[in-house]
């Protein structure tokens, strides 16, 4: 398990990558039986999704409002502040909503997942389950993973809509862009492709962030310090992974 010698960092990185991949495979196998226990799944959708609702909506509102202000200031220099709706909608749908939701999710739900599972590990609850021939992957890890994967696209969609109305609030009510123009320009320039891009991104981010959170918790060193370290690693790895995947997916979609 531990890395040895001088070139340890590289080897450790490769080992972790392999370990995560194997973990994902084992997790996916357990996802099917986990679907057969909707009560556990419901609990996790509530934890990951419903309890992130306030922070997501608040962030979405302010991101949209800032987009309205900045977009208006930039566009009115070119005398085309009517394009504000287009700028805000495309910016939100394609980039801001999936990425910021994923970052918030990593901070809000990912850390909770990691510390919860890590603490279960530290207090030998997972070992106890194994002794009783109950697979902790099936009853602990898989529902949490699935809950995150289901919650993320929904959170992203909510973020987009709230953000759009935030941009409308600033653009139309505050800055005086015509409401009809705002929406007609938006509808004229957004097509299904843009909406799909956001949805695909959010699903991918959901898988990545939930996987990292569950993996880090499951493989945390069973000490107080180890759980703390695992939580930190979850945030860092999820954030970096989100931004990295975002670039790949954007290049794919454009």
């Amino acid at each position, binding site marked *: 398990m531990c890395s040895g010698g001088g070139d340890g960092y590289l080897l450790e990185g490769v080992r972790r990558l392999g370990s995560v991949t194997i973990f994902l495979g084992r997790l996916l196998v357990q996802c099917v039986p986990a679907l057969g226990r909707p009560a556990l799944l*419901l*609990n996790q*959708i*509530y934890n990951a*999704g*419903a*309890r992130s*609702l306030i922070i997501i909506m608040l962030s979405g509102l302010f991101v949209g409002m800032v987009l309205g202000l900045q977009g208006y200031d930039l566009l009115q220099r*070119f*005398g*085309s*502040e*009517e*394009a504000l709706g287009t700028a805000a*909608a495309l910016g939100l*749908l394609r980039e801001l909503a999936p990425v910021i939701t994923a970052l918030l999710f990593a901070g809000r739900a990912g850390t909770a997942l990691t510390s919860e599972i890590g603490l279960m590990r530290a207090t030998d609850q997972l070992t106890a389950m194994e002794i009783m021939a109950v697979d902790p992957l099936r009853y602990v890890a898989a529902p949490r993973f699935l809950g995150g994967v289901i*919650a993320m*696209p*929904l*959170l992203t*969609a*909510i973020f*987009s*809509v709230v953000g759009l109305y935030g941009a409308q609030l600033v653009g139309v009510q505050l800055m005086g862009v*015509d409401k*009809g*123009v705002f*929406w*007609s*320009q*938006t*509808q*004229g320039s*957004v*097509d*299904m492709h*843009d*909406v799909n891009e*956001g*949805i695909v991104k959010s699903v991918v981010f959901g898988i990545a962030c939930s996987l990292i959170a569950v993996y880090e918790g499951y493989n945390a060193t069973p000490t107080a310090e180890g759980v703390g370290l695992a939580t930190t690693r979850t945030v860092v790895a999820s954030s970096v992974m989100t931004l990295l995947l975002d670039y790949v997916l954007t290049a794919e979609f454009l």
Partner: protein
Amino acid sequence: MRANRTLEIGTGLFVLLGFAALLFLTTQLPASGLKLGGAKAGYYVTAAFDNIGDLKVGSPVTISGVRVGEVSGIRFDSRDYKAIVTMRIDPQYNQIPEDSYASIQTQGLLGGKYIGLSPGGLDSYLKDGSRIDQTQSAIVLESLINKFFANYSISKSGGADASADNQGKTEPKK
């Protein structure tokens, strides 16, 4: 049991909100999607244009720069080869002379198009189903520049004349 109930309500609310947002994004946002929401009050008038530029459904209709309504429909008349624009005028503006003049104008340099109505002098007013006969098409900037340079290259003095002539093109419709 109580805690379970809150959990279920919370999750239900979240999933409901999420799917409502998804539905909004997929059906309402792209122009190709279907439109919900009932028709707003007002009366409808039509006008035929040779060229509407990038006028869209939802673009404003103004008189003297004041918004009085919006474009509610655009279709193509394959008999006359004209674009038929339907406008919804807010009900309080019910004293617009029948011989008013509709022109398609641009907001700013690169902005969207809108319809400007110039009131005429008749005592009879536009009502639901009326048709505005006097229209002026959108000015397509490129063709304007093309015309200008074509004329400019022929005679340098004639350039300004020709572009002014092009701009004032109107089509009285009978």
